[in-house]
């Protein structure tokens, strides 16, 4: 009998120890606790997998009744089936690797214990989300990971941009959670339960309109958590957090929760074709939209952030066209290569001493060969080069999309080409050519192009002022730029080892894990699509074109990008500024709310109506009191007599009206 509760409990224990005692513990102990708790959890997942035939025989465990009130009966139930198994493996496996990576990456940070406490708490909530056997438990995890995300984005809380980004992530997610809550209410009203088993088995018999409403509300929740249009805006800003956080939370695990939820609720979605169509379109639109923005960014983490948004769009496309298993497959492979990309980016940033602007990198391959190698693997995978993991999953989605609607396939292929282009653009800019960083004079002026997520890297092992980092890391950005002349360096092995593992998985993940086959019992395989080889060829071709084009533009012919930029002019500015979406939201949503509440609620309602009523009441009572004050003799016995007289009158009145008649 496997105790499923131990899986989330171990990180939680780690959180408690590190959170409560961490300040007193040495860094070695803190990291040992944090890493061990997650690795043990991973071990437990593996043992659960072995004993249950990797989810072949679903496990369902009831621990205690959490809420029982009226018709609501919600237990603390965990369950493991194949879908959960995949998520568990991804979350704990990649989580372990990233924890190991983070011990190296965060080694010189203040608040080391705090970071790992949050990270462990995140693992707890994420595992809760994945293991929960009803929507409310899923929601608990959902909100919990949101909280941890907020805490970790704002990890450098002395930096205003970081706290702002944290707030943004939290608030934008609230909109999505609102949708999800409504979906849960609707589910409860419709099905009378929140248990997955009961809800999903009863779903086919319910009216389509209700199911569509539920599915659309869930989609709203998913767009918040998984950064889809229109709520994707928080994810790029979330790169303010430390890079391991970006890798774990904002690339590999938390943002995929929306995909997981939709797949989990497949029974509902399958009965709501309109919702499915919406999911597919939202996913596709997000994929294209984010990819175009990704083409123009210079901040290496921003590029990968938009890439994440885009790839999540792919997953939703897969879900929307009914290829749930393909979506999950892409979720998994994406977790491999995107975590790798971020961690590689972290390694690069680390090497450059906190620099994130790709224009100040270049030629790093000779300084950081390992990083270069693993990033190449990841880039190959995301570009969909045949044989790599990304190729299989992406191809599965595109094929399914073609079966659903051919135009979706073509848009997807174009997006794939763009993806390959911008990822390899980043790769070439970073590793090829000459090292452009370190020359004095421009280390001050790159702040406008990207957010300041690199303060977390403001350290270097061979640094002359290593010691005062503990006091001043958060404002050491500029000092840092100067100190870092010309000697990018390879990262320590605690960081590189996880990268190598992930690189292997990125390349071979597609062969190793045939997810659609594995999930066949849950999600039937898609029917055969005609011309499959042709489609495959097209998508491979798109990816190779993207790679070639990027090589052409950023390695062979370096003047070309500038020319194109000039030629496109307005369009380039539009895309470079991310289509002004933030500004658009600011103008259409944020400002009206502020203005409205100032004008209507404050000046109008509060000062006008409420204050008026209060003042009026005051004036009125004063004038009435002027008359009544003659009654107030200040004599207690008079008052008592009045009370008695009143009581007598009251009793007589009641009696007259039948109160005293039996």
């Amino acid at each position: 009998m496997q105790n499923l509760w131990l899986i989330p409990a171990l990180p939680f224990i780690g959180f408690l120890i590190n959170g409560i005692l961490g300040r007193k513990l040495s860094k070695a102990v803190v990291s040992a606790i944090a890493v061990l708790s997650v690795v043990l959890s991973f071990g437990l997942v593996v043992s659960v997998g072995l004993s249950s035939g990797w989810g072949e025989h679903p496990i369902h465990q009831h621990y205690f009744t959490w809420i029982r009130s009226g018709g609501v009966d919600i237990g603390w139930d965990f369950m493991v089936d194949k879908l959960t198994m995949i998520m568990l493996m991804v979350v704990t496996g990649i989580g372990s690797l990233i924890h190991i990576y983070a011990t190296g990456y965060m080694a010189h940070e203040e608040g080391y214990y705090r970071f790992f406490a949050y990270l462990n708490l995140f693992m707890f909530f994420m595992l809760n989300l994945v293991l929960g056997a009803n929507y409310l438990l899923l929601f608990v995890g959902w909100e919990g990971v949101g909280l941890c995300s907020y805490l970790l984005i704002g990890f450098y809380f002395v930096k205003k941009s970081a706290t702002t980004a944290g707030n943004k992530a939290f608030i934008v997610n609230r909109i999505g959670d609102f949708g999800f809550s409504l979906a849960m209410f609707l589910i409860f009203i419709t099905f009378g339960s929140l248990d997955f088993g009961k809800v999903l088995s009863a779903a086919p018999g319910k009216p389509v309109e209700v199911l569509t409403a539920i599915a659309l509300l869930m989609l709203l929740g998913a767009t918040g958590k998984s950064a889809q249009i229109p709520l994707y805006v928080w994810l790029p800003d979330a790169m303010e957090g430390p890079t391991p956080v970006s890798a774990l939370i904002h690339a590999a695990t938390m943002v995929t929760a929306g995909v997981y939820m939709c797949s989990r609720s497949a029974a509902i979605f399958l009965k709501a074709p309109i919702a499915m169509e919406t999911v597919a379109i939202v996913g596709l639109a997000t994929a294209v939209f984010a990819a175009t923005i990704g083409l123009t960014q210079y901040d290496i983490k921003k590029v990968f952030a938009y890439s994440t948004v885009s790839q999540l769009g792919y997953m939703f496309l897969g879900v929307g066209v009914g290829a749930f298993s393909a979506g999950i497959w892409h979720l998994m492979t994406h977790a491999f290569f995107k975590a790798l990309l971020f961690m590689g980016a972290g390694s690069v940033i680390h090497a450059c001493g906190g620099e994130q602007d790709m224009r100040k990198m270049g030629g790093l391959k000779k300084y950081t060969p390992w990083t270069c190698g693993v990033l190449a693997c990841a880039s190959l995978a995301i570009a969909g080069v045949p044989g790599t993991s990304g190729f299989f999953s992406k191809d599965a989605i595109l094929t399914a999309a073609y079966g659903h609607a051919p135009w979706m396939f073509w848009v997807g292929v174009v997006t794939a080409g763009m993806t390959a282009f911008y990822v390899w653009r980043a790769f070439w800019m970073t590793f090829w050519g000459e090292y452009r960083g370190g020359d004095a004079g421009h280390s001050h002026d790159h702040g406008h192009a990207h957010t300041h997520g690199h303060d977390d890297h403001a350290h270097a092992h061979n640094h002359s002022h290593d010691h005062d980092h503990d006091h001043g890391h958060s404002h050491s950005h500029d000092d840092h730029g100067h100190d870092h002349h010309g000697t990018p360096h390879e990262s320590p092995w605690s960081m590189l080892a996880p990268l190598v593992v992930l690189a292997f998985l990125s390349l071979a993940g597609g062969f190793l894990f045939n997810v659609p086959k594995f999930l066949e019992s849950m999600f039937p395989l898609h029917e055969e699509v005609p011309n499959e080889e042709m489609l495959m060829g097209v998508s491979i071709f798109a990816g190779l074109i993207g790679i070639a084009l990027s090589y052409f533009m950023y390695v062979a012919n370096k003047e070309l990008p500038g020319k194109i930029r000039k030629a496109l002019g307005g369009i380039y500015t539009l895309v470079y500024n991310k289509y002004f979406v933030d500004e658009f939201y600011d103008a259409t949503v944020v400002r009206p709310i502020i203005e409205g509440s100032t004008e209507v609620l404050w000046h109008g309602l509060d000062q006008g109506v409420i204050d008026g009523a209060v003042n009026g009441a005051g004036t009125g009572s004063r004038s009435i009191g002027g008359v009544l004050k003659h009654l107030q003799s200040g004599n207690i016995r008079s008052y008592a007599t009045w009370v008695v007289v009143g009581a007598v009158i009251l009793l007589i009145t009641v009696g007259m009206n039948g109160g005293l008649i039996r």
Partner: protein
Amino acid sequence: MDPQVLMQTLGKGVPTSWYLALSAVLFTIGVAGFILRRNIITVFMCIELMLNAVNLSFIAFAHEHRQVSGHLFTFFVMVVAAAEAAVGLAIILTVFKNRSTLNIDEIDSLKN
């Protein structure tokens, strides 16, 4: 009312209404004391008398309905009365210290 029937009844027990009537009488006496007396402590004691009268009717009702709830109400009334006595007497002490009088008719600063 037939006297003979009444006597027969009284041989078996006391009517509940007598207890209630006693309670009413005591309550009225308490109110009378409250209205008529001027010593603040006596007035306070008359409040206690009223509370006791009410307690008696609670107990009588408890007996009538064979429920223990009436006892609990009485219990709570007693607890509240204890708290009230503690605070009230402290207030009386303070009042006496400041004004050297216990006559409630002279304690009327809130007038007008």
